[in-house]
């Protein structure tokens, strides 16, 4: 059977319902293609698929039992966690600063590479110069607006 006669035979069978079959066929092909990588890329390019959210969660893992005052030694073991909500490994530059006065004083800083959906717990022993009633420690992440803070009563006022 030649190609011509084959297509003619198919045409004869399909013709009575050609419009419905054509529409159903096109829809089926579109849906199948959309689920492939090419289809997803096309949806994304057209702004029709929501990108996976990507952000950092910054928190104190022991939030229930945070210290309320600074030890007499003025040294404190500070624990905080960085969780990477995203699909790729991300490197976060963080810093801990004393936010008590008018000037934000950097106490310690570092970098944490966190895998996708991973968490890195940072533990640092820091010395806080606590001369007033209270000191506020601020943990922040560079190029992200996430920041957490901890108020501590100074040893002389406890």
């Amino acid at each position, binding site marked *: 059977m030649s190609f011509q006669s084959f297509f003619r035979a198919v045409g004869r069978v399909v013709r009575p319902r050609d*419009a*419905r079959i054509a*529409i159903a066929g096109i829809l*089926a092909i579109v*849906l*199948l293609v*959309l*689920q492939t990588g090419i289809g997803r890329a096309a949806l994304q390019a*057209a*702004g*029709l*698929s*929501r*990108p996976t*959210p990507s*952000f*950092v*969660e*910054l*928190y*104190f893992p022991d*939030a*229930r039992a*945070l210290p*309320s005052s600074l030890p007499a030694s003025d040294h404190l073991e500070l624990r905080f966690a960085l969780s990477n*909500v995203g699909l790729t490994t991300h490197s976060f530059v963080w810093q801990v600063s004393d936010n008590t006065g008018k000037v934000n004083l950097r106490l310690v800083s570092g970098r944490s590479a966190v895998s996708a959906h991973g968490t890195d717990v940072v533990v640092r022993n820091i010395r806080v110069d606590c001369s007033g009633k209270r000191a506020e420690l601020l943990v922040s992440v560079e190029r*992200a*607006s*996430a*920041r*957490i*803070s*901890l*108020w501590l009563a100074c040893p002389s006022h406890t």
Partner: protein
Amino acid sequence: MTHTAWNAWRRRLVPDRVPATWLIELAVLDIGIAANSIWLLRAVVALLLAVLPGQLLLRALRIPAISVRRYVAYLPCASVAVLIATTLLVDLVGPLLNVHEPLRRWPLLVGLNLALGGLSRLGHQATSSYELKSSDLIGDVKWLWPLLLPLVSIAAAARLDNGDGSTLAVIVLVAVAVMIPVCTVLANQLHRRQISFLLYGSGLALMLLTSMRSSYVIGFDINAEYFDFHQTAVNGIWHFGHLNPYEAMLSLTVLPASLHGLIGGQDVWIFKLGYPALFAFFPVAVFELGTRFLSRRAAFVAAALVVSQAYFFQQQPEIARQELALLIFAGIMGALFDVSLQRHAQIGLVSVLGATLVVCHYSTAYITIALCLLASGLVIALSWGKNKDLRIAVLPWLIAAAVMAASAAIWYLPATHSTSNITAAAQSIRENGFQLLPGRRKGESIFSAYFNGLREAPSTPLQYERSVSKYYAAHMSYIVPLSAANNPAYNLRAAPPLSLPDRVPLLASVLADAELLVQQMINAFAVLGAFVFSLRRRGSPLSRMVGAIGLVSFVVLAASRLSGALATDYNSSRLFLQCLFVLSILEAALFEILVTRLKSRAWVGPAVFGCFSLMLVIAFLGNSGLAVPLVGGNPPLSLSNKGEDHADIYPSAQEKATAQWLASAMPSQRLIYADYYGQLRLEQFTDLRSAIFIDITPRTIDRNAWIFASTSNTVDHRTWGVTSSGVLDIDFPDAFLDRYFNVVYSTGSTEVFHP
């Protein structure tokens, strides 16, 4: 098995006179469910689940195919009834057969096959006049183009979420605004199926503009609804017992869990896409019911009236249980007004749908029972002593009411013990009475008080803070605020409004006035129509029954407006939409009478209905917020990433992460603060329900509290205070919280405070 035995078995199951298309469809459904990770098969399964169970149930009940073609809403209603009943049976029987999580794909598939096989057996004696072909429901392929509109809406919502602007959303709204008058003029030349597709496509497109925003559910009630659905889906089983009303509604538990199990994908899509797709049959049902009494044009106008209401396309997609219940209500009304049905078929269908309604939504069921009883009483009184031909058969109505009342008594009491809402309402009425016109002032007339409703001077943020702190001090002595909270520096202040600035104030004012006038005229015409049709001597008994239902709908609506107790217990706008199902038809019928009286002039029909459709367009402009980008005002969520709606109800991934962290980090003995809208995130994403306080004011925050700060709180620095005169926009008390609480968690756009 020999060939003869096989043939005998096949004939018993599928008699020769009934084509076995359902077997092919069932096979496709099974394959689709088995491989439901493929989007194409998911779409096929969703379509077949909406059609096939209903097809078989309607045949088993001996509902003629022609009746279904003329009132398509029977089909999704019947499918919902079958799916709910089947899933409930699977849920109950599964554990007896050592299937501990019966609401999973395979047990549900087995149950569905058995149920559909059983229904087919019940219907196997039915003649071909009861055999509905799927192709009959489509008609001409060219008529399907309105179904592209919902696809455009989905794309519009995704683009708006990605910050790509609202052009597509505006196109959808303009298309619907144009469709209303054009279709009104052309309605009598269009095929009824064509009009049904137009109404379905435009109604669904409007709903999806709101429901498809965000990756999570959007709205107020739907947050708690989704939580119960999600829990059922996660647990894979639903139990009887002492349940709260949401847990007891199968429309929020068993049915969506079943749909999720069978169709696959993320469960949230069932509420965001599936339920609106079912509820979009509501205006189609109005149209098809209307065509039984009216011209196609008048029936279209009645349906367009429903489509143009914000209650329909903005509010309903946020209340999943009522979306489904109103669809079933439409099915019940359609069956009760259907003269093409045999009495036993009518009673069978009404009974099945009545029982389904009871397990879908309590308030809609109560209102439907009341409407059936009151309308029956009214027509009995009106036709007392009349000619037998003029008497109206109220038996099906009374049976419907009896079935629903009995089902409600069983389901709400011994089965689920979930009458807390009705007992609370009864207690409120017992304690405070019906509170007739609670806003009425001394010496004020009843009419003035009725139209003014509940009025109170708006509180200021400081008045609100003092009032709630006084209440907390009197009733919640365990809450101990910090002494610094009384520092006047931390007094609450009003937040600036989020509305777009008025660009054309004069036009905005004219539009607002026109919209108000039109909406009031629409209400007035509806009431007039109800009186005319229930009391007039001419007309068929059936049209008088429609009038009676309309009149009692109006009475129920008026009662909810007159009584403070009823208004508090049930949102009158939701009641309005249920009553509008019949009132919109009566309103169109009123215009039809006018046109018939003036029929000597050919232009009268298009002119009268054209004017009315333009009124609907004006109402639609206001309700949809389409004019906001031009004239200013508060932009709706469907058109913008700014405005009140976005700040209130749009959940973000950061809010989900924050809520879930909070739930995992807190001790069991705790006090949580999340504002009026912030609590919705906790409801949707966590099981935190108790000891949540919504008043984030320095004087009410306990010194050991955990405070959930949403994106609106953190980024826009605004919160809300609920008062008897409304919800106040207030500056979030960052200064106080930053000074006296630690920020223990942050994503940058959300925070958790704790000392």
